[in-house]
């Protein structure tokens, strides 16, 4: 409160110009960004055949709920939603715990294998063996046709680890030193000294992981193609979208029935909205951790 007052009274002309420019910039930004989203929502409520004519912008022309009915009547949608929620929750918890611990280890300046371990993980970001060897590995480990393929293989990711590490390195070193003098072990320092200060970055990584888990469908298709009990929501929705992304093909009709099954753009839009909703709800919940200076400000060195 007090802080705000200080700023208000002292705002100079330059600051006022800044605020005006900033407002204009952000407003323009919001308009440009929001348009595709609104357009998608409008399409999702529009009649499918009518939408083919184009020209729908902010409001639907012929209102209908049919697209949502089509999406929600998709086979296995309930199983898919259940698995998606499960993998998002379990996947996020596991990834957060392991990445945080790894980040803690590599952010310890006294640690003897620090740079080697960092390098080991950084390399993983830029190399991969490709689809086939990975598939063969998972098959031999018994991970195909199972739920665990969603959460175990991608659990630790170098990107998330590095984001956390950078944040942890920015914390005052004095905290750790004083805890060590008090006789705290590494796990205690990690769990009760460092972690509470890392809420903003944990929230960030949790968001990244949760969104990644929620949105991914390729693994469901690749590893659990025939195991429909492990299907995910995104995979079910992707089946609706895929007819347009068809690669290649030939100039000759396979059959009239097959070609007629192109998914209308409106159903694609409805599927997109269904996908976005849960994630939009998640965001404000995590957003409270992104408030300036919430954590460090209270810690005096």
């Amino acid at each position: 409160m007090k802080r705000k007052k200080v700023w208000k009274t002292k705002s100079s002309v330059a600051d006022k110009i800044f605020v005006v420019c900033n407002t204009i910039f952000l407003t323009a930004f919001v308009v440009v960004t929001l348009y595709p989203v609104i357009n998608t929502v409008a399409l999702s409520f529009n009649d499918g055949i009518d939408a083919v004519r184009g020209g729908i912008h902010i409001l639907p022309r012929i209102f209908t709920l049919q697209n949502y009915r089509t999406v929600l009547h998709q086979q296995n949608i309930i199983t898919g939603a259940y698995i998606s929620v499960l993998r998002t929750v379990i996947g996020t918890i596991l990834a957060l715990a392991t990445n945080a611990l790894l980040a803690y280890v590599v952010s310890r300046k006294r640690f003897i294998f620090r740079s080697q371990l960092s390098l080991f993980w950084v390399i993983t970001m830029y190399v991969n063996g490709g689809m086939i060897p990975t598939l063969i590995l998972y098959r031999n480990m018994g991970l195909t046709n199972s739920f665990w393929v969603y959460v175990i293989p991608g659990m630790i990711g170098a990107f998330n680890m590095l984001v956390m590490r950078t944040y942890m390195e920015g914390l005052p070193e004095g905290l750790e030193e004083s805890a060590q003098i008090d006789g705290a072990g590494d796990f205690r320092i990690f769990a009760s000294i460092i972690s509470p200060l890392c809420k903003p970055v944990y929230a960030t990584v949790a968001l990244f992981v949760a969104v990644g888990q929620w949105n991914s469908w390729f693994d469901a298709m690749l590893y659990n193609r025939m195991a429909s009990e492990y299907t995910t929501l995104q995979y079910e929705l992707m089946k609706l979208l895929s007819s347009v992304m068809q690669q290649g093909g030939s100039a000759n009709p396979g059959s009239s029935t097959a070609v007629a099954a192109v998914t209308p753009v409106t159903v694609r839009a409805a599927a997109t909205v269904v996908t976005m909703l849960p994630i939009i709800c998640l965001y404000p919940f995590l957003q409270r951790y992104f408030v300036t200076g919430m954590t460090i400000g209270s810690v005096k060195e």
Partner: protein
Amino acid sequence: MKNSKLQRVLAFVLLAVMVFALAGCNKGKSGDIKEYTMFIAMPGSEINDDNEVAQIIAEKIGGRVKETWLTGQSAAEAVGSIIASNDYPDFIDGGDGMMALYNEGVLVPWDEYLESGKYPNLKEMYSDKEWESFRQADGHIYWANVFQNNYGENRATTHNDEAFWIQVKVLEWAGYPEIHTLDQYFDVLTRYAAEHPTTESGVATIPYTMLCEDWRYFCIENAPEFLDGYPNDGSVIVDKSSGTPTIVDYNTTPTAKKYFAKLNEQYQAGNIDIEFATQTYDQYIAKLSTGAVLGMCDQWWNFAYTINDVFKQQGLDKQGCNYIPLGLTIEEGMENRWHTYGDTLNNSSGVAVTTDCDDPDAAFKFLNDLLDQEIHDLRFWGVKDVDYLVDENGLYYRTEEMRTKAADPAYQASHLCNYSYMPQWLGTSRDGINAMQPTEQASEFLNGLAEPLVKCFQAYGADSYPDFIGSVVEENAPWFPMYSFSNAMTTETPGGVAWTKMGEVKHEWLPKVVMSKNFEETWEQYMSAYNAVNPQDFLNEMQQELDRRAAS
């Protein structure tokens, strides 16, 4: 403290998963009905597990199929990953990846099953000679294509092929003229456009547009083949005039140059859509659906299903916006072969049984039973009195309400079950009255036509779309269609490499040729770019295959 809480949450979640996983294992099998799995390397829509017709069929023939379709991968990629996972469904249609499955040795040979005499319906699908064409290098048959195969009399009502299309209203305005050449075609289009700069609803008229996007660029690319009067061999012309069939490249013929010169002339005159080279398929369809495009060259299945629905909904069919196919040739008085009357046997892919299927005998019996007339009617017509009615002469028909219902995706998923990639027939039903599939039932077809179309059909004395084309009626050559070979080419051979590169060159240069201010110069540049990728390698391999097919 925080941590123990976290652990408790974690433990709880893990427990939930265990319970769920155990529950998943208890999926029982129902009675004597066998559940088959099938993967189809094409995008498609799944039917519900409790689909009604599937249930009826299952009770009658003791089996049902759970279909899985291609999602977000190419056919070859999907087949590659199935091979890597070593986990095959009972039935598979690998599309472009069929040869990979054959090479892997995971398909069950059909020969002894076909010869056993236990599966007469299956055997009946093709003549001995046609079956021979499915034989692979190792001497066995592993799959059967299921499409474009007529039982009895051919009942085609639509021209499910390529053509230059023209709106009915243009023909009506011009007094239903005879149109045989490109010059006449563009003449009518431009004269109409000059008098009608906009449609009734005020959209600017586009005399002619073309789609150049990705694999759909056949709309601009392969017309020279037809303009010279040859059938749809797809990638090449087969010239029989010298006695021995010879491969000819339609990209470099004088006709090709004339055709592109014509397009260039029309583009410079402002009669061709300026966005033709960059539009996407969605934009193309959106454009057509305004009714403002007077003509284009396209395959019926590429636009008609969507466009006809839109026209009907918007009332544009009453304004004469529907398209009529024309069998154009480069010169007046030539024969044309735009329409394929015979069966098109694409032997490069089809339905196969895999070695993971634990009871191949039952699987083949299932395929065989799907071709029983009763089951076939259930698959394509649906349930009697629910999806179709039968009049006193035994003719099947649908009410308007039934037609609408049959087109509803939700109803299709919950009720109809045509197993669209399983063996099936076109043509006339075994009862001699009806068509095998409703789309080919003449009475159904005529009932659906709008008034301007009916007038046009009468003016030209046509009963069906193919009548407008007037293609030569003849039996398909034994090598037809050659595209079944070029489709299966890979970059392992120089011909396959050339084939891919030719496609790349044409994608880039054909629009340039049409848009060029100096046609002759650009055409020369195109030709030198084209010849630089060794098209002869491709043509040589096609010739070899042609010789092989002609000899067998």
